[in-house]
């Protein structure tokens, strides 16, 4: 089983300090973990710090996996390369491996990744022809084709329609269960978080506001502190906890 723990993480760009103090309990692999926070709270910076693209204070303790087993998926940007979807996933698989030849095992891994995220029918399409949502699915396949044990995804569902959001989150969940990998997803839809993610890390202004089991972390007080909105978490008619947003926080409180 893979575990990951953050201890007083700091990071920044040059003199500009973005993260000052991020800590988390032990994150167990095999389930999804959410990272929530307002825009510019430092979510992407935290991912880049964990992935080792940025240096900074604190320690990232990893067990059951090495840095090489870690993959980070940045937020969606355009992909205009003259490559097919299939080629772009091969490319992700071959990074750091070298060799111009492709083995059957490698091609099978590419096929599997495309099927898992429901984009096999796009395999022969050019990247430039894809819609935003399709591109995001391709990014996810690129990230997971190497079977990483630690996965950090920056808003993996932001461009997906409701149906695809469910599909992708379910696929990510089953990937975590199958491989025992740690998957941390930066997400904005707190109802999706409550439905899919067992643990949640909430950050604001480069600090941890709360970290632990999702239902314990996502309280009205924390949501108010995170986003400045009034919200309630209540059981719906089927007994699932749902978040209901009332609107911007009133000044008095």
């Amino acid at each position, binding site marked *: 089983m893979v575990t990951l723990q953050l201890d007083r993480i700091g990071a920044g760009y*040059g003199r500009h300090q973005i993260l000052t103090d991020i800590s988390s309990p032990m994150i167990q692999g095999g389930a999804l973990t959410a990272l929530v926070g307002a825009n510019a709270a430092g979510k992407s910076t935290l991912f880049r710090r964990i*992935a080792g*693209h940025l240096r900074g204070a604190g320690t990232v303790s990893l067990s059951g996996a090495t840095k090489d087993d870690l*993959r*980070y*998926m*940045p*937020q969606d*940007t*355009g*992909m*205009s*390369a*003259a*490559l*097919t979807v*299939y*080629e*772009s996933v*091969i*490319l*992700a698989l*071959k*990074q*750091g*491996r*070298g060799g*111009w030849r492709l083995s*059957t095992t490698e*091609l*099978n891994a*590419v*096929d*599997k990744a*495309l*099927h898992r995220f429901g984009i*096999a029918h796009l*395999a*022969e399409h*050019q*990247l*430039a*022809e894809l819609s935003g949502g399709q591109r995001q699915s391709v*990014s996810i396949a*690129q*990230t997971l084709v190497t079977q990483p044990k630690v996965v950090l995804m920056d808003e993996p569902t932001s461009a997906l329609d409701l149906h695809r959001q469910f599909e992708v989150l379910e696929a990510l969940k089953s990937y975590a269960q199958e491989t025992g990998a740690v998957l941390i997803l930066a997400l904005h839809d707190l109802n999706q978080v409550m439905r899919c993610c067992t643990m949640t890390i909430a950050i604001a202004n480069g600090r941890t506001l709360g970290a632990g089991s999702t239902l314990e972390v996502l309280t009205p007080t924390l949501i108010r502190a995170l986003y400045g909105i009034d919200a309630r978490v209540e059981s719906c008619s089927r007994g699932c906890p749902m978040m209901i947003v009332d609107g911007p926080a009133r000044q008095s409180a």
Partner: protein
Amino acid sequence: MTLAANTPTHAQAYHGLVARRLVILGVLVIALILSVAVDVSLGPARYAVSDVLRTLFLPAQADIQMRVVVWDIRMPMALLAVTVGASLSLAGAQMQTILANPLASPFTLGLSAAASFGAAMAMVLGVAIYPAAVTLMVPINAFAMAMAASLLIFGLSTLRGVTVETIVLLGIALVFTFNAALALLQYFASEQALSAVVFWTMGSLTKATWGKVAVTAVILAICAPLFARRAWALTAIRLGEARAAAMGVPVKRLRLEALFLVSLLAAVPVSFVGTIGFIGIVGPHVARLLLGEDQRFFLPGAMLSGALILSATSVLSKAILPGAVLPIGIITALVGVPVFMTLILTKGRKAW
């Protein structure tokens, strides 16, 4: 899941794609060989093709004048077209890759303009940057200035906060600067020097020698494998800097390495043949349209298409006016542009 049933189809489709690309590369090789053969058999002195071929394959039996023409004049010219075309196209391809800009090329980033200025310094002012070799003053000056321009770009790109857009803008600034400096030199030049400068900037293969062929071939033989070793990483850069970095590509270091190699690849040919700006932009685009951007195919493809275009242009430059050899830089632009326009307007709309 129908995973097992579907598995072979995409892999098969991919194998088909690879096979198609290998065929395209093969066709390019054959076309290049043919073009070189035609190139050697054409020239101001009119020889029958059969005589030229006999001179090529049985030089000992050939007439001595013919041997000199074919082996010492036409062959170096034909082969220099190949090495220069391949070098400039490869340089353009990798510039476009690392700078994520379809307009990047040795021409648009100021290397050609810098080389022209260096050559003009020698021809107008008689200034030799490396005085020990006065006979090679023109190419050495051109090389030095082109190298200086690319090292300037290289140096500035290592600065913090310099993005690929900045580099491209800087290159364009260099083009204007060197063109202005060149114009100034031309303004004060004697009539004789002026015509030499103008002729040089038109680009020409007529000063080809075996030595120049060897130098360009060696540089190509050094640079191409170095790029080939980084094929996957270079392809990944085209998915965007952030994505490539996330895949573990050392983007900054790779960009610097590539810029350095590109400088060599572009500066040397330009100093030998003058301004043949077009190849560095068109060669890579033709290769991209034919083969996509997987560097395993794109890299040899760019070299072959550049070599083929320049070689075919060399043929045209002799065929248009029988008995005369028109400056190749003019022909590349005049003939190449319509062909290129047709290609991008019919096929290339989606890339870039």
